């Protein structure tokens, strides 16, 4: 017995070794390292540093108005993203599902923006926002297009949303489409015979049947939205001032500009990590329950 288990342990370790070694180097140790640094006052311009306990964490939440502001800004962004991205993706999926011939065409079209890297998308949209739309507004009657899309802090929030949605909706749409295809047509037809309108059928029949996909998509959107970086970096850089600074940008600025406080920035990124953990945990909990019921 013992020889067998020993051998199987070795075998397991051998199979796992290459992956684990690289993983430890790239992710595990740096994560622990990051956690360690968050308890120090290490900054990029000093060679030595000291242990300062929870001081960084306390400072971040009490004495750092920019960080707190970026937290609220990010939460607002996350809320909008989770709702909008999933609603739009669902709508698109539902509509495309009704098509017969043009299905593949529309699917491809809506998914294509997802292929383009986020930062390239941000650059292309910068062009559209700053050059194309103002000209368009001039030439046509659509004056609402004539905003300072990137320069005006009230509007730039929506600009970032637009870019993120444009880039990300396709991904969710594909998942929803696949899930919808798995819903038996017989159920939908039965509902229609029973007198349900298309909207009712959708809500009462389709949605529950794709509950798993909903959980996944909400999770992905939530996770991704909290960590948004490239869209903001490419479009506004967090500006003007700090009006569109999301958490990741605040951390980035703390670590690489300001006073290069790596320890402090690490602490803030731990806070981000904890927040993401809590939210996604709650989200999955709530939605998994719904799944079971359905």
């Amino acid at each position: 017995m013992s020889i067998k288990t020993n051998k199987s342990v070795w075998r397991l370790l051998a199979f796992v070794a290459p992956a684990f070694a690289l993983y430890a180097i790239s992710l595990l140790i740096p994560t622990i390292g990051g956690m360690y640094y968050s308890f120090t006052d290490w900054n990029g311009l000093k060679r030595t540093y000291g242990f300062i306990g929870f001081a960084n964490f306390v400072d971040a939440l009490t004495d750092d108005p920019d960080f707190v502001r970026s937290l609220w800004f990010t939460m607002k962004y996350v809320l909008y993203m989770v709702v909008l991205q999933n609603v739009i993706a669902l709508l698109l999926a539902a509509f495309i599902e009704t098509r017969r011939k043009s299905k593949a065409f529309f699917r491809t079209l809506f998914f294509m923006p997802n292929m383009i890297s986020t930062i390239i998308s941000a650059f292309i949209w910068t062009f559209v926002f700053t050059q194309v739309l103002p000209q368009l507004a001039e030439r046509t009657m659509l004056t609402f297009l004539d905003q300072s899309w990137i320069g005006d802090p009230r509007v730039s929030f929506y600009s970032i949303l637009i870019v993120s949605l444009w880039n990300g909706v396709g991904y969710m749409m594909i998942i929803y489409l696949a899930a919808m295809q798995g819903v038996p047509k017989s159920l939908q037809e039965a509902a229609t015979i029973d007198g349900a309108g298309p909207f009712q059928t959708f809500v009462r029949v389709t949605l529950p049947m794709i509950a798993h996909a909903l959980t996944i998509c909400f999770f992905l959107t939530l996770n991704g939205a909290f960590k948004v970086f490239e869209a903001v970096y490419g479009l506004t850089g967090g500006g003007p001032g700090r009006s569109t600074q999301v958490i990741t940008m605040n951390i980035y600025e703390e670590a690489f500009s300001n006073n290069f406080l790596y320890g402090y920035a690490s602490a803030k990124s731990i806070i981000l990590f904890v927040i993401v953990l809590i939210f996604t945990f709650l989200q999955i909990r709530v939605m998994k329950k719904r799944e079971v019921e359905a």
Partner: protein
Amino acid sequence: MTLRRTASAAIVVFLALGAAVACFPIYMAVVNSFKTQGEMFESFVALPSKLHFENYAQAFEQVNLLRSTMNSVLLSLLGIGGILLCSSLAGYKLSRTKSRLSGFIFFLFISSMLVPFHSIMIPLTRMAKALQAQGSLFGLSLIYIGLGVNMAIFLYHGFVKSIPRELEESAHMDGCGELQTFFRIIFPLLMPITVTIAILDFLWIWNDFLLPLLMLTDMNQYTLILSTNTLFGEYNKEWSLILAALVLTALPVLIIFAFFQRFIMAGIAEGAVKG
């Protein structure tokens, strides 16, 4: 019946509008990259009078296109290859072995999936420097492997469950060793999920920005995205030139997309379902 018809028509209109919005930026980028700077400012929406390929030629040179693309390709191949190899081995064994150790190791792998990149950014660069992995595409690919195995293992772990154990048992009885069994019998069966993982990881590695920016020192090693970004920082904002560069950067991915659409979309759906 007419209600159906109008509803159907409304849907088409809605979709068409949506499609227009989805394609508008890309159309703008492509169309204007062929114009001269002056022509562009006259009207953005109009089609170019002549296809000015000079923008592309210039962008080609300034972005060092061939070299950058080769770098991106190399990085992606190495990264994906490594991820697939390491993760399939690990995910398979972890799934098959039901022991405390196996559960623990699996947990170690997954627990980091939510960690934001910014948390590990600096310690990672220090680690890379200590291991001499910085400043080389090869070293960078090792880092990508390390970063990508956790999700891949997660997916492989789930997928392996659908392969009956009898296959391995009969292979053992026929005298195959562990590795042989794996590569000859199991791995081919993992093809669907392998394709999924390969595609997802390709999109990630090819389009990644921050990590290569911090790791690569020599401009000759820059990936495509990095090279294009340097263009954006130049003092002169010549939009027609920049757009040409942006189109060139997006092109390889779009071409791959055009050919492998089915795979990509199926892969994403699969990945989500299994997850």
